[in-house]
């Protein structure tokens, strides 16, 4: 039934999104890009793709950072166009997507101010999808409570922040904790929102979000080794909407080294595969890359079904991966470091 009336409100946007998705670079395009001798070549090749003339107005010595920002700009324009056209509940869904960027921005700004950087220098580094009105005044806050009361209370992030108010002051450790707590709250909220929407959206999105949650849990655990983070505190940071919940998370909370984490992942078929192929030796793929690859697979799957919102999230994520790929290739080309140029993650 949902499918029947889906197109009334969201048909255009889904079509648009699928159209945008067709512009995602194919393997053949990557093969062309990898052949490039210089960034100018890269620009030329990108002109032949859906990106068109997005670098046309840039002055000649092209830098990787301009490419990066231009790529991002194009993506943001596309996403914001969709957001402006969207109606409930898609608009809320799309807003939810932007919240993760808000969290990143807030953390970036706080860390920046902690290191006495002028705010004007930090603002351009923020992701444009996650900007909000009060963002630039964030440095007035000195404690989490103040941050909440003065700045965040008016933003949609307020409900996620409630758990962090208890932290005493803003130092690096606490910022990390704030970030992860925010993320945890955000993921759980997003997950239950998708469940609430139900139907195919829930099917596809919960799968992706569950993976996202599990990835965060695993990464938090691995990164916490050798820091002063206690096991209890660590357990509090795990998002509880993934497949690891509850047994896996409990096991993770007890883990003390990488091998134990791996042992936990052994119980879950899809994660054990990721751990098996990864390693830190040259030639091996890192665990992070493996996670990215898995994420790309999940996101591609979202396009296999119709009449759901997952395509918007997946499109954004795939496109981000593509930006990372292009930037990676561009970096390799710019630094004449061709050995690792093939380490991008192909999408189609």
């Amino acid at each position: 039934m949902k499918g029947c009336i889906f197109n009334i409100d969201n048909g255009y946007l889904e079509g648009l999104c699928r159209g945008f998705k067709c512009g995602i670079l194919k393997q053949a395009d990557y093969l062309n890009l990898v052949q490039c001798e210089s960034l100018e070549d890269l620009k030329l090749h990108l002109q032949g793709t859906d990106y068109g003339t997005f670098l046309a107005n840039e002055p000649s010595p092209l830098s990787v950072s301009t490419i990066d920002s231009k790529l991002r700009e194009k993506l943001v324009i596309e996403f914001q166009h969709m957001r402006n056209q969207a109606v409930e509940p898609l608009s809320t869904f799309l807003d939810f997507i932007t919240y993760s960027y808000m969290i990143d921005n807030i953390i970036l700004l706080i860390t920046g101010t902690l290191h006495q950087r002028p705010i004007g220098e930090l603002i351009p580094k923020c992701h444009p999808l996650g900007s909000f009105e009060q963002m630039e005044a964030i440095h007035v806050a000195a404690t989490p409570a103040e941050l909440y009361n003065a700045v965040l209370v008016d933003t949609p992030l307020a409900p996620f922040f409630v758990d962090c108010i208890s932290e005493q002051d803003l130092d690096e450790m606490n910022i990390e904790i704030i970030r992860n707590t925010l993320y945890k709250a955000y993921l759980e909220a997003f997950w239950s929102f998708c469940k609430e929407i139900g139907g195919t959206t829930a099917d596809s999105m919960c799968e992706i979000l569950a993976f996202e949650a599990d990835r965060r849990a695993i990464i938090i655990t691995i990164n916490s080794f050798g820091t002063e983070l206690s096991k209890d505190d660590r357990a509090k940071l795990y998002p509880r909407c993934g497949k690891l919940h509850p047994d896996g998370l409990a096991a993770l909370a007890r883990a003390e080294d990488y091998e134990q984490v791996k042992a936990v992942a052994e119980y879950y078929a899809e994660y054990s595969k990721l751990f098996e192929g990864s390693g830190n030796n040259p030639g091996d793929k890192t665990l992070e890359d493996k996670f990215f690859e898995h994420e790309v697979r999940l996101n591609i799957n979202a396009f296999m079904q119709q009449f759901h919102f997952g395509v918007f999230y997946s499109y954004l994520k795939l496109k981000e991966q593509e930006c990372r790929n292009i930037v990676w290739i561009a970096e390799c080309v710019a630094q004449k470091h061709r050995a690792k140029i093939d380490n991008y993650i192909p999408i189609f």
Partner: protein
Amino acid sequence: FGNRFFCAKTFTFSFFQAHLEKTEGDIKELSESAVNLKSNFLELTELKHVLEKTQAFFNEQDEANGLDTAHKALIPEDSQNISIRGRLGFVAGVINRERVPAFERMLWRISRGNVFLRQSEIEKPLEDPATGNEFHKTVFVAFFQGEQLKTRIKKVCAGFHASLYPCPSTLGERHDMLKGVRTRLEDLNLVLNQTRDHRLRVLVSVAKELQNWSIMVSKMKAIYHTLNFFNMDVTKKCLIGECWVPCKDIPVVQKSLADGSSACGSSIPSFLNVINTNEDPPTFNRTNKFTRGFQNLIDSYGVASYREANPGLYTIVTFPFLFAVMFGDCGHAIIMAAFGLWMILSEKKILAQKDKSEIFNIFFAGRYIIFLMGLFSFYTGFIYNDMFSKSLNIFRTRWYVNNSRFDPDSTATEFELLPKANYHGTPYFMGVDPVWQLAKNKIIFLNSFKMKLSIIFGVVHMIFGVCVSTFNYVHFKKYSSIILEFLPQLLLLIFLFLYLVVLMFMKWFMFSATLDGWLDKPVNKHGSSCAPSVLIYFINMMLMSETPPNEGCDMYMYEGQHTLQQILVFGALICIPTMLLGKPLHIMFTKKNKTPKPVNVSKKSPVFKLCNFIFLYTLVLFRIKPTGDINQGMELDEVPENRPEPNNSTHPEEEEEEEPISEVFIHQAIHTIEYTLSTISHTASYLRLWALSLAHAQLSEVLWSMLFNLGLVREGYVGVAFIYIFFGAWAIGTVAILVVMEGLSAFLHTLRLHWVEFMSKFYTGLGYAFQPFSFKNILEEEDAD
């Protein structure tokens, strides 16, 4: 192509380039200073507003204070109250209107309610100096207490992009400042207006020139692009370019080269040498606006090989004619011809229009074809006596109804007209007698007529195609092929298919319906009931068999027909091995006793007599001196003499390539099989003339009887309305289906008949088109982009 452009333009171009750069710099500088001035102006306006608005706040406050003090003069805390107010600090500034609510909330939150914010909107929208967009702003004054709060408020202000302005706290200072700001604003306004005017003047003058400039730039680009193809001479003193030039135009090129040299003012002329080459020259058919459409039809099949006979000329007549055979209907023809004529007459107007749809462009390019097709169709329509499926009785039908043979009381609506009784004996003056329109056997009659007609046209067309191939053989000096290929091909066609045509004519002349008796009378040998079937004759001739004739009729039309037919078949059969083996054997023998003959085939044979459409190219070498190199011109003189030799050595004279003899055999076998089979299949293919003509006539009849006829049954006012409606439907149907769709289908079939049935007899079409350097084409292309 002439270096006149090169020299003349280079001079101007260096100036031109400098001029362009200067203009660009000027404009950039102007806009930059304008932006600076504007942002200055914006700041001052904001300050002015701040001063004005805060004035109101302070006044209000003072008044309130005044009231307050008047009211509460007796209350002892008064002095303390004033002292507290005295210690209040404030910041004044301007903020974007849409950010005000969040800003206010934020201030309230960070100070826990201890900031007092007053605001007032600036009514007039301000202008962003960089983009020129308008936006609204609000003046605010925030009152607070304490230094610490001040820094935090300032942080918030920075976060919200509010611009803060110094605002003196006393009335007098504010007044003074306001006065100063106003005078500065006025000055600035003056300067701004001047800048704007100046910029406008510069831009207007540029806008006038822009069109010319862009044309000049694209011309220069094209010239430099071509110059890049030039080679530097060994002495590096001159440039050498090779190009194809039509032989006929060599004097023109030489003249323009001379003109160019003199325009440069150089004493050393540019040279043009003709080089001999073995490369295949491009094909260039000079066309005018009339022939271009027809030539395009040919070129879309394949550009003619160099100096090959070009069917374009014949197509001008045969194409509309074959089309007309299929499209024969006076009414539709008039519509088509009128459309073609309209396009031809308003040619200039349409050409001047830029925004034409692509489909219309296609029709427009073929306007002369359409017009001719319309005219020819009118003729065939007249012969078929068809006008919107109706016949015209112009010359009085030669049939009459003779009632004497029929019972006058008979209620029969159909009369049988017999040639003997109801025919005048002389045929209708021209075309098909309109009486056939009423006949039940109209289709049978027309089928037989049109079928024979299409075979006749087909055979003639094909024989003509084979004959054209002699032009090619003569021009390419393959005289042996005339005997070994052309002759057997021609004889095969003549012996079998032309004979078929002859039989048809004999049948038409020798048998007459008027010679038939009444049904019960004995038949005449030349009556229609004795008329033989030409098809059966033909089949029998091929199979060497016989069919017994009707009673009382002759088996053959003339004496010795059987013998003649046998001779013809044998003759035709002999043609096949001649085609198959003649040429390879000839090559084999000539190779054996071959004396090395110098190849005399000069590519410079001056005139091509047989086909006027193909012109000749010679590779032309010409030199252009680097400009401004007049002093070193002395060395140049020697260069031209030795140049051609290295050039020739790069294209060594090659012998005609030797194919192995087995390949020659295989090729020839393929050609022979193809040709022999094609004589039959192509002849049959011409039957499409009949089929389409029949379909067209039937369709237009259906449209009339099924649609327009329905509108004719009512009378009175209802009838008028009916006719109005049905005529509309019929007219639309006629134009859309019969003229456009049927026209397109007949066009395609005609195209096929030309490409496959006609051109396969002589045309290879392996050449490539000549692409002359032309400013006109280049500019048009740029326009299209």
